[in-house]
């Protein structure tokens, strides 16, 4: 049981505020991913949980106990670093045993626990090697092994896959997911800038931007109901299409217009007071369907097609507006479309996302709280 509770946490480096009044709860036994663009403060947040960075104000509790004044070693945590941070002069065995030796465990127990971790990570044959004789992937396994042997309540991962090549990254990602399954009692906190890692590993994602939490939720929640423009754009690849739209008619099925000619049904209820407001319409590339021209479709001119076999990415600009809006559509198969074509798109029913002027999500004409 190791819930991490963070209450109004603040941190500044000099004049720049890196973490701004962050409060959150990381559930026990969860795999929580903190994701955000570089410089958003996610690593700093993790290092504060680890105790490597001092807290300006606020409180961090691990398993109900305030750890503000505890040094890292007394927090019952282990951390895996992006650069592996292995001890270069020690063998793999000693790297993994270092923490246990400091805990003054018996030699037999150390040997057993290191062997067990090595077995889980399939690095038994590497135990006598030095780090410089290992490949990047092997080094990262040792780093993870070093964390496992200590059997902590909380595992902290700081972009552990960033230094690996693409293929290895995918393989290690799956192993990390399996690792969490095999250690159901451990709470894992994982920092990354890669939203694919976040989506595949997490059962809870925290999206961070400029030191503030944008949204906390399960991967699918974030994908299907982004609470604001930032999350909408950040989660999903290619990113969600966002175009400004003016509320045009009121009632159960309000229309919005882009420029003069183009009108789209917004599937939402707007009041007369909303008329003329400029809001944002978002839709994911895969929710666009090529369709015939009818009243719910809009036309666009294709500017580029990336055909990947399984699907094609169609880059197009929406017409009928004063300034063109570029959108991306993900079309399954190999559509017979080429540059310069005029095509009609429809947005799948129920797949629209509306955001107000400040970028907050609208549901049924009301701002989501």
């Amino acid at each position, binding site marked *: 049981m190791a819930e991490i509770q963070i209450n109004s946490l603040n941190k500044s480096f000099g004049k720049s505020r890196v973490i701004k009044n962050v409060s959150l709860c990381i559930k026990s036994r969860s795999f929580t991913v903190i994701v955000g663009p570089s410089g958003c403060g996610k690593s700093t947040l993790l290092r504060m949980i680890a105790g490597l960075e001092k807290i300006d104000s606020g409180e961090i509790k691990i398993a109900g106990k305030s750890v503000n004044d505890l040094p890292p070693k007394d927090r019952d*945590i282990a951390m895996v670093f992006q650069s592996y941070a*292995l001890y270069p002069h020690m063998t793999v065995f000693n790297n993994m045993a*270092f923490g246990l030796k400091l805990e003054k465990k018996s030699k037999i127990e150390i040997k057993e626990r290191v062997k067990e971790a090595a077995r889980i990570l399939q690095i038994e044959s590497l135990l006598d090697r030095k780090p410089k004789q290992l490949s990047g992937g092997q080094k990262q396994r040792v780093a993870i092994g070093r964390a496992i042997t200590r059997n902590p309540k909380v595992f902290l991962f700081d972009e552990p896959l960033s230094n690996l090549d693409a293929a290895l990254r995918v393989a290690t990602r799956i192993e990390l997911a399996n690792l969490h399954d095999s250690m159901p009692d451990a709470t894992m906190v994982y920092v990354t800038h890669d939203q694919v890692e976040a989506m595949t590993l997490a059962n809870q994602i925290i999206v961070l931007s400029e030191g503030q939490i944008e949204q906390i939720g399960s991967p699918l929640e974030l994908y299907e109901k982004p609470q604001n423009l930032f999350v909408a754009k950040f989660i999903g690849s290619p990113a969600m299409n966002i175009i400004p739209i003016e509320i045009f008619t009121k009632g159960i099925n309000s229309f919005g217009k882009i420029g003069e000619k183009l009108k789209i049904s917004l599937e939402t209820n707007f009041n007369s007071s909303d008329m003329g407001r400029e809001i944002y319409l978002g839709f994911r590339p895969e929710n666009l369907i090529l369709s015939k021209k009818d009243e719910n479709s809009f036309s666009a001119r294709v500017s580029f097609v990336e055909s990947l076999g399984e699907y094609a990415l169609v880059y197009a600009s929406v017409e009928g507006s004063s300034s063109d809006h570029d959108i991306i559509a993900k079309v399954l198969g190999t559509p017979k479309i080429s540059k310069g074509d005029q095509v009609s798109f429809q947005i799948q029913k129920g797949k629209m996302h509306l955001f107000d002027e400040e970028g907050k999500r609208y549901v049924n004409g009301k701002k989501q709280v």
Partner: protein
Amino acid sequence: MSFFSLISTVIVGVLFFVIYFGLSNFILDLVCKFKSNSVALENSVRAIIFIAPAFLVLFMFILYPVFETVRLSFYDKFGREFVGWNNYLWALNDPNFRRSILNNLGWLLIVPTLSTFFGLVIANLTDKIWWGTIAKSIIFMPMAISFVGAGVIWKFIYDYRGTGDQQIGLLNAIVVSLGMEPQAWLTISIWNNLFLMAIMIWIQTGLALVIFSAALRGIPNETLEAARIDGASEFRIFWSIIIPFLERTILVIWTIITILVLKVFDIIYAMTNGEWQTEVLANLMYDWMFRGGGDSGRGSVLAFCIMIGVIPILVWNLYRHRQEQKNEI
């Protein structure tokens, strides 16, 4: 006028070498154009051409004197009559020689070890405080002082005036203010060697400190943090992570200071001139070679002994250097 002649000497010298390298290279190119035998041969000839001047200078000023020293060590004090092993036999039975060997061994054990130790510890400590840079500059400063200069400064520290007189030596001033008897520090046998070594340590700690400070920067912060999370205390991190990390640097500094200490001369010369059993090989050599009419035979024996002492360290250094290069490939 002398300034002008200096400039012209430099110009002539540089010109000579420009012409030498340019011309020999040009001739080699020309020869190879007509007789394109093998690239390997051409390369080795070119190497010889470029190394030759440096080798010549090395030979004249280092290799030749070595051979001449060895030769002289078998001749009498004027370098005229062959005396066989007599000079060596003399050295073996000379109490001053034995004393110097002992003292040199003491210097070798204590000075490099303590300088390296202090340098390492201070580098590590000054890294953690805001006034570390100031502290480092102050500790590094003695490096800028010549050994003789340092000797003069420390003469004032160890200075002794008779009891009842005003003590102008710093050490004695302290001792007297504590209510104890002033001492003639440099005459207290055995201990006085340590007092002399303190000067060398005072100077060389700065060198070790600066190099260690730079090397410390090379230790990735994340490795230290990983150790901290693993539960290591700061002392344990220093012992188990930092020292193994700096192993190469420690050896380099230790050898640099060891070689320097083997040749220690200036400090002894300026402070005690080998009196009160503080004699070391270099000072003894100087004594025999240039004082009281000079004895080139015995002086050469002593010079040769110093060289024999340095060689193993040099060879070991070269060997390590080769090993490291091999490892990097």
